[in-house]
């Protein structure tokens, strides 16, 4: 293994550099085959791109192989100055994990690219290269406990009176559903109510889960919010937390234990699609009047590929719920492990709106290519970006969150 020089006079920096430098051996094992940029053509029998940044920007630097070389050069001190272009290259990665999904099956490269690139983002943040948009939402999270510059008091304004109880499972609504995509939060609680599931919300104790911070290299700042949320959930005594947000799900379930140095949390975290699948399996929920709908399903990266690495991917549950409801699912060529990212994650939607919208537009085109006019997904952030792309295209396309279809079916 190559020797790595470590800055002595800056303890914090040392810790982070150590983390990035831990991958150095693996950096030498990437031989630039670029298979990380294409969906698995053997199983798909098609040739389709899978890395949004490389597909959009085109320069080698934006591919996973390119970023690995930049990481190596930083660790080996071949470059000391981070240029604005390097910041653009690193921060425009949506962190969708598609590169690792391809690479881990095919090559000897053993490190997880998504983790490397998040550490790389953190490295850049520590060097003072955080992007203004990311600094902005981090400040808002600190002040308002949400990244949208919205007042914290307004967090649960969407909640109809009398629905939430002081018992049962905790519904962790998340910032996007609380402030931007309220129909998702409303439908989720209506569905819980319709299924006779007592639930509560954390009210003023629900803070941003920290996903926007973690995914943009601001890990230290995410610790406080993680600690707070874990304590707040613990105080309720609930054993189960339900999220309808893919980002919150991944963070609560997989990042919190790591961030807080815990072996496991005192409660179980489930995505709403998993929760309702269990209810269906147990016969507690039935859909007598089936919905007549044909749609495609978009797999959000955070419950799909990411959880495939850190636990169990949530691919089948949303599909099962939709099928039970009566939705005829027509799969897009790139689905499950091979899903094309919606383009909004990793702080990309705020910092690189054009690229983000293009990525979502590509997904809408793919949905169109299978002859449907409806996309269902399980993530408020995917809903937002796909809806923006639909609006931009001016096409009569519909984008729903699974919870919306579910609550309609349970009416």
């Amino acid at each position, binding site marked *: 293994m190559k020797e790595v020089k470590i800055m002595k006079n800056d303890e914090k920096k040392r810790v982070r550099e150590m983390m990035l430098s831990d991958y150095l051996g693996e950096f030498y094992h990437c031989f630039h*085959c*670029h298979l990380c940029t294409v969906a698995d*053509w053997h199983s798909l029998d098609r040739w389709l791109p899978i890395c949004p940044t490389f597909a959009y920007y085109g320069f*080698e630097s934006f591919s996973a192989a*390119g970023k690995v070389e930049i990481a190596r050069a930083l660790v080996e001190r*071949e*470059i000391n100055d981070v240029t604005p272009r390097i910041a653009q290259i690193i921060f425009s990665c949506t962190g969708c994990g598609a590169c690792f999904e391809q690479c881990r*099956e095919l090559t*000897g490269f053993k490190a997880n690219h998504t983790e490397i690139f998040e550490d790389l983002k953190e490295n850049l943040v520590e060097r003072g290269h955080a992007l203004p948009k990311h600094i902005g939402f981090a400040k808002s999270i600190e002040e308002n406990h949400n990244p949208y510059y919205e007042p914290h008091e307004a967090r649960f304004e969407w909640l109809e009176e009398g629905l939430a109880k002081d018992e049962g499972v905790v519904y962790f609504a998340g910032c996007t559903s609380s402030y931007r995509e309220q129909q998702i939060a409303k439908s989720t609680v209506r569905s819980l109510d319709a299924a006779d599931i007592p639930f509560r919300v954390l009210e003023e104790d629900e803070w941003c889960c920290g996903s926007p911070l973690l995914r943009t290299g601001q890990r230290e700042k995410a610790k406080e919010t993680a600690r707070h949320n874990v304590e707040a959930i613990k105080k309720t005594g609930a054993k189960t937390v339900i999220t309808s947000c893919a980002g919150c799900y991944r963070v609560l379930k997989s990042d919190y234990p790591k961030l807080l140095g815990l072996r496991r949390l005192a409660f179980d975290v489930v995505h709403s699609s998993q929760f309702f699948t269990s209810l269906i399996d147990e016969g507690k929920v039935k859909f007598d009047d089936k919905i007549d709908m044909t749609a495609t399903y978009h797999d959000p990266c955070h419950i799909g590929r990411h959880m495939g690495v850190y636990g169990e991917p949530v691919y089948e549950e949303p599909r099962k719920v939709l099928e039970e409801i009566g939705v005829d699912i027509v799969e897009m060529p790139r689905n499950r492990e091979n899903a094309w990212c919606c383009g909004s994650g990793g702080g990309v939607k705020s910092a690189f709106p054009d690229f983000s919208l293009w990525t979502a537009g590509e997904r809408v085109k793919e949905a169109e290519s299978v002859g449907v006019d409806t996309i269902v997904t399980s993530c408020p952030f995917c809903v937002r970006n796909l809806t923006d792309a639909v609006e931009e295209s001016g096409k009569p396309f519909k984008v729903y969150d699974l919870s919306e279809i579910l609550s309609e079916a349970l009416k």
Partner: protein
Amino acid sequence: MRAKKIERELVQILGEENVSSDVGDLIPFERDDQFALVPPHRPDIVVMPSTREEVQEILKLANRHKVPVVPLASGINRKGLCIASKGGILLDLRRMNRILEINEEMMTATIEPGVSFGQLVKEARKKGFRVITPYAPSTASVLANYMLRGIYGTATRYGIDHLINIEVVLPDGAILQTGSAAFNQSLPYCNIVNGPDLCKLFQANPGTLGVVTKGVIRLYEMPEVIEPLIALYPDYASMVEPSIEMTRRNLVASCWPMMFTGAAMKILTDFMEEDIYMMWLYLEGDRGQVERDKEAVEKITERYNGFFLPEVPMLDRDTMIKDQIWERTSVKGWKGGNMYGCSFYGVMKSVTRYYEVTREISKRHGFDAFHYESVPVAPFHGQLTYNDPCIFWDASDTEQVKEIREIHEEIKRSLVDIGIYGWFRPFPSVVDTSKLGRYGEMWRKIKELIDPNAIMNPGKPPL
């Protein structure tokens, strides 16, 4: 000053979004898998043209300023061939990725250099054709690979020459068409008219004579049946005669005699630790032909003490067939980290010696994870065989880097002593044109004639 001026001119040609001299865009090009043998070096600027006209303008500018130009079609050659050893312009051709024509009558495809095998296979299949593919990542450029003369899954039956004509932008910006395209651009499907085949002159020159902007390649009928078989043998020597017989009788489309040491098998499978000698065979054709060929292949295998492996999970039939059509999904040979290879052409009857010598060198230097393959190539006159001694190693270990450099020199010397035809692909750490006598001299003179300012990919053979 000069660099800034050149950059400004390039921006004028290509627009700002296709030009970068930022260190972040340059670092990814500074080294490749072969960095132990071809030292890393950064280009000064990277450009991404989309048209032939843009390439012409770039070359004119580079020639005027005497700035090196390194073409790159997909950059996965593993032989240091796209390393800008003298800096200059990295000409990334991936935006030139149009399939210009798939001609069903002529059985050809006309493509740009950025077209990957995966992309072409997909389009050709729509019309029932097959592309001859290497067992390489499907991301590789078809034209770059055919220009470098690759080795293909089906080399035993279909050989290695699948390029008909090319269009080249010469260092002065002029355009050269080869073969029938020189005479009649609407009929570019023939290479053997109008004097010598100039396409061949450009082949196996790694971007050192000009930039290929278009090529006409051969497509083939998709066989009705593809039947993969794996035969195991007691040792390498036992595989030589059956390979010769199967090739001469044209029984197999692919014949890949290979060996993996136990240490290599452990890396690849996690559970097997035995040395293994095996032949990957693909029978192809209509059902009747495949049945007849299979019968003959079975008899030959038995006669030489081989036996057939039942289907195993890692090498299931479906994956093997897709490997043959689409190229590999798998680059699992790299599971151990890195892979050293020094491929060459030799004579089939000598492969046991090539194998024994290279394995011994590898072992002596402490590398037990070793792999060897020797593929008979059509036409098989001269017992033409592609050989590749491979060593699994770890490039992050500086000690191993040193050892690999020594091994490389030893392997080259020993193989020359045994007698080989020459090196597969001209890459900087193997070809020494001074050892080629008049031929080498002539090669250099041709280079000087076409590229007097030596701007094209300097540091690569022949200069």
